[in-house]
């Protein structure tokens, strides 16, 4: 019997996007990588920031950024201290 610990991440799939994705016409290639830090560590968030910082932002809100980037959310792996979004393109 499988008993995941409390630390095991939880997966949510965006079926609307992921079920019928076709990459035939997509051009792939080396990625661009952006890191934006708002504090040096998770436990040194500036005054005024929500306790969970960026983790408090819903996935629906991030969609507006990803629309500008031309990516869609395929699935989200959620853990206590980090959310990992798998994106189209």
């Amino acid at each position: 019997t499988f008993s995941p610990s409390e630390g095991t991440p939880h997966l949510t799939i965006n079926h609307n996007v992921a079920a019928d994705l076709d990459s035939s016409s997509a051009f792939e290639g080396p990625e661009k990588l952006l890191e934006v830090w708002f504090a040096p560590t998770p436990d040194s968030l500036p005054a005024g920031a929500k306790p969970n910082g960026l983790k408090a932002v819903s996935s629906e809100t991030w969609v507006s950024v990803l629309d500008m980037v031309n990516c869609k959310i395929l699935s989200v792996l959620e853990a206590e201290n980090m959310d990992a979004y798998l994106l189209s393109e």
Partner: protein
Amino acid sequence: SSMFVFPHKLILKTCGTTTLLLGLRRLLHIAAEHAGFPFHNAQSVDDIHAAASPYRVFYSRKNFLFPDKQPGPHRSWKEEVKYLDDTFAGGSAYMVGKMNGDHWYLYITSPDVTVTPRTLDETSLPNSSKIPTNTAPTSKGGLGNNDETLEILMTDLDPENAKQFYLEHANAVASDRLYLQAQEARKMAIGNLGDLSGSTITIKTTSTVESFSDDALDVFDNCSDSDLHSSYTPVSEQTDAECMTTEGHALGTVISDACGLSEVYPTSKYPDARIDAYLFSPCGFSANGIIPAPQNQEVADSEKSTHYFTVHVTPEPVCSFASFETNVPGGQNGRETSEIVEHVVGIFKPGRFSVTLFEAKATHGYDDDEIPTSLARKKRLEKIQGYRRIDRIVHDFDDYELIFRFYERE
């Protein structure tokens, strides 16, 4: 493409013709409006121009392969730097590696620079007065104690290895796996019962792959061996009720296991690790892995954070490329960085690859004049079996050290 959201930072890595930098100002606005980070360029957070002041920004990329196909500011490094300079004051841009060969670009801001967040709408830019960035000192001296990022960028993948990342191949692998699972189940049932006639085989399993297999395995009830080998039903042909996942995710998980990616951070050493993988149609592969901090082990506070890795593969011969990135610290109780590099390179067998190790100086814990204790660990990276190391370039930033290495197949 992938995005990682931590309480204090966001990492966005996008492939192909995506317009990553066009989302930057929206991201800064969301950080102010929805996460409450301080902003200085507007009276109210309701102003759509309100943009949180970052502590630090990194932007990096490999050299351009098909710049003419890139839209927006992504046609050249010069245009990308201009876009970033228009947004942030005090940034620094670097090119690392051979100008007339594979190289790597980096744009970086430091915590003590001023930042100029501008408007979301480029056609109506407000006055771009210099705004101090968030430079509040912290009890930890400003940096995370354990911040290092390893990135491996691989081109000219071995064609046989690249085949693994095609849908057609993945379907065959999935079918074979189900066949083997069913055979194993039969052996167990025969061993336990002695007679299978009229019985139903049910296998309760643990991982995503096998969960996906549960429904499909019902197909095997009372089938002959010859029937079994062709009885895999693509998820896309199952009913909604049967679909616990998508075909892309299911096959992505199959391929993660089959190619060896699942073993880069094995559950024996990283018990709560989990991979979310997707196989694109007709080809291409992306995966994110999360490595939570161990729950029941005695580890230093600096180790008690969640780490990630991410993989993206373009297998087409004309532009074959794969990337691997992780911030899981090398060494300590886990795998050495050199082991990770050799493992990943073994999956793709690229003709050429670069390794960048970006490490906070607080991480390796020595001053410039001291002999680094991690030197031996780093030296192991000098020799990757089957490859010749061409370049090794070190950049010494204020609080980070960047080591770029480039290798070619021998």
